[in-house]
């Protein structure tokens, strides 16, 4: 079953705490992404990963870092979370990075609240 899985689904943290969001996919996709979704702002690209240890900043990388040590796993890390990082975070994957018309497959999202 082709799937992108995100954990956890809901998370509440205090300002200054570290946050780890995890994402897995079972499709052997090369490319993975982290987006955040805010009302009125749509989906904004945080980071993109082309393969293991091959990551690139998206449009809003400040305050975030990522890790991809296995092709099927992609983590988003917030070091010392801030209240303006309260958002819904979506992980996505696509088959490869060489074709612009690739379909993105999204996970169900993690709703992060930073108090």
């Amino acid at each position, binding site marked *: 079953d082709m799937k*992108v899985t995100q954990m956890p689904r809901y998370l509440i943290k205090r300002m200054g705490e570290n946050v780890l969001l995890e994402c897995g996919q079972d499709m052997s996709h090369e*490319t993975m*992404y982290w*987006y955040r979704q805010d009302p*009125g*702002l*749509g*989906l*904004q*690209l945080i980071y*993109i990963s082309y393969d293991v240890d091959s990551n*690139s900043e*998206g449009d809003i990388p400040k305050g975030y870092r990522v890790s991809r040590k296995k092709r099927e796993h992609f983590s988003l890390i917030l070091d010392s979370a801030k209240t303006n990082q309260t958002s819904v975070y*979506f992980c996505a994957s*696509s088959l*490869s*990075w*060489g*074709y*612009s*018309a*690739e*379909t*993105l*497959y*999204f*996970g*169900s*999202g993690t709703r992060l609240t930073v108090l």
Partner: protein
Amino acid sequence: GDSVTQTEGLVTLTEGLPVMLNCTYQSTYSPFLFWYVQHLNEAPKLLLKSFTDNKRPEHQGFHATLHKSSSSFHLQKSSAQLSDSALYYCALSRNYAQGLTFGLGTRVSVFP
């Protein structure tokens, strides 16, 4: 830079009526265009994407036509259903497969 404009933030309509969602774009090259749909508390998923030729993509009664002359990729359906209530995103591909640039989204609410 590349951008996508969706002019309607919210569209409300009665079941059975036609729906059209506007999408225009700006790009430094010739991108692919996509429509993604997100139902409440679910993941966004692909609804349609443009073809390289002049074929019109269709899915679940929705269709969209890429007009390069006007940089538009409007989404249309002749008869809305209650199950079409969702958030719809227009998106364009970036060069060198650097992910997608999404518009702000249009929320569609269909009433009986």
